[in-house]
């Protein structure tokens, strides 16, 4: 009984968020312009990444700088499995034979990317989840650097730092929208699952949670693997959205953007993760537009390059200063009036 009531109480959140994403997709569909289409695809991919980050950071409270490494793993899986065998031979001659011959559709590559990333999340997580707090954050950073160092140098399998081209480009917005919605539902399902609840208890009251028999490293590891899978699938789709991968696509720049979106939206809230993406993506678009130059009367007015990141950084710092729990705080969009998560009286369910 209790199990279904939490489902009923929280199901509104992923539904509202999905409706929001669907609305975005419909706008893009009606506008129909190519650059706008690409922008909306980018937004959906960011939703996947940020929701993936939220699944771990939001539920565990441990800041991870390393999740983009899983996107990198996933992105290269897409490159390994979907590029035409002939092209693979020249760019990445070191691939094993069975992988060389493989040519699978993009959705299968996304699943494979997610699985591969989840496996490595399990391996890394088994070590990293033993650390706590700040040491864990720095160790995830080291993991990111490690993956980047390997992928930037293993030229026979990853073509080193040069870009791997020839990944089939998927231009339709719908697969990306479905991926974003799936990510939202997975994140929601995890956060109301037994492990998700245990993990959030451990985030808020580690001592009490441990005393109640929660194995903190284990529940953290579960979250790490699930979020790694989401990031890996997102990385594979990212590769399909632009048609190429380089190790530096998946490094500090993307880490910074996704983390700032999560922080601005609210680290402890799934709705915050999605809203953060939508708000900051709009800001980034406006700034990109200004960087490209705007005609004001007879003269062109353009911001110098780099302003976009500076503005993002400043917004992030200001949010942290004045509203450290982000726009949404710990609350979710429930369709009712905004209310914070209230502890449920025992016995009322």
């Amino acid at each position, binding site marked *: 009984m209790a199990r279904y009531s939490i489902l009923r109480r929280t199901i509104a959140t992923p539904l509202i968020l999905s409706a929001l994403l669907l609305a975005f997709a419909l706008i893009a569909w009606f506008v129909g312009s190519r650059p706008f289409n690409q922008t909306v695809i980018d937004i959906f991919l960011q939703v996947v990444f940020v929701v993936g980050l939220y699944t771990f950071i939001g539920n565990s*409270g441990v800041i991870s700088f390393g999740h983009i490494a899983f996107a990198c793993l996933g992105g290269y899986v897409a490159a390994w499995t979907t590029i035409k065998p002939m092209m693979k031979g020249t760019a990445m001659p070191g691939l094993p034979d069975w992988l060389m011959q493989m040519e699978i559709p993009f959705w299968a590559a996304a699943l494979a990317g997610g699985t591969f990333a989840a496996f490595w999340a399990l391996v890394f997580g088994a070590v990293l989840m033993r650390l706590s707090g700040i040491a864990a954050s720095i160790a995830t950073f*080291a993991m990111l650097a490690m993956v980047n160092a390997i992928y930037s140098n293993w030229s026979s399998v990853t073509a080193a730092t040069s870009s791997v081209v020839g990944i089939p480009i998927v231009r339709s917005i719908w697969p990306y929208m479905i991926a974003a919605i799936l990510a939202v539902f997975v994140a929601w399902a995890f956060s109301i699952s037994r492990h998700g609840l245990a993990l959030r208890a451990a985030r808020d009251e580690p001592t009490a949670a441990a005393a109640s028999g929660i194995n903190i490293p284990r529940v953290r590891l579960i979250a790490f693997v699930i979020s790694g899978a989401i990031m890996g699938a997102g990385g594979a789709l990212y590769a399909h959205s632009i048609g190429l991968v380089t190790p530096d696509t998946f490094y500090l720049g993307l880490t910074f953007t996704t983390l700032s979106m999560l922080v601005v939206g609210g680290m402890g809230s799934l709705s915050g993760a999605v809203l953060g993406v939508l708000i900051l993506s709009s800001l980034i678009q406006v700034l990109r537009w200004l960087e490209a130059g705007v005609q004001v009367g007879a003269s062109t007015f353009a911001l110098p390059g780099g302003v976009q990141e500076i503005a993002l950084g400043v917004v992030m710092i200001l949010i942290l200063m004045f509203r450290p729990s982000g726009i949404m705080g710990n609350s979710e969009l429930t369709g009712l009036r905004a209310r914070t998560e209230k502890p449920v009286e025992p016995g009322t369910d």
Partner: protein
Amino acid sequence: MGGLMQVIFDALSLGSLYALGALGIALIFGVMRLVNFAHGDVIAFCVFALLWPSVDAVAIIFAGNLPWFLLIPFTLAVGAGLSVLSEVVVFRRFRRANPATMMIASFALGFVIRYFLLMLFSSRPKSISLLPGLSQPVEILGARIPLLQLITILVTIAVLIGLTAFLRRTRFGLEMRAAAENFTMARMLGVRANRVIMGAFALSGALAAAIALILGSQTGTANIMMGASVMLMAFIATVIGGMGSLAGAVIAGFALGAIATVMQVILPPDARAFRDAFVYGAVILVLIFRPQGLLAARGTKERV
């Protein structure tokens, strides 16, 4: 014999760089539990402070033309100044925030500094010649090593002795150690918090500037990303050393330098490109066995 000495000097000079970086991070962590992700970008900023802003590929050396006895204090002052500025403008408002919030704020600040440099100088690496006299080799115990390497090691030793003396023998150092031990208690006993924290930031910034000078003359290039790899190693050194323990940070910094150099020698040539990946792997192994770090600082353990 010469070969061995060469390895030892390589290890010591690389370790010095990491130790200086780790010290800069541990100093600030000690007084305010801030993991300063902007530290690497302070390093890059100090190098670029010697150049005149331009997006051309050729660097226009500006302050870099000063004679060395002015150049060094100038760079140290730039580092200390930027570091103190970041404290006053940003971190002061995070005194009551939790460490994770501060860490993300410093990450964001680092990006702001980096892209500020990108805006002025573009992202292309520029070649600079900084203190060119230091690249000539000297012969010691059968090993030919660049003078710069020797100076790096000597400077680091001097900095370590100087810092130890400062922390142990002066009133300000005493206050800083007290603040690192128990900040609230130190304040109640009359230690002025803002002064101590600003002092720590100034020291840390000056250490970043020292790294900038060494890196700049070693590599001969200025790159907006140049601080990132040293900073990452320095972070790892602070974690392995036990967060906030200055001695631990220094020891771990030298240990990382030694591991990296030894791996460079013993790894087969194919695997050398992965040296850093192996070092990170070794670090993760250390953390399995000692999650608290080698020398855990007092007062950083989580209490119930």
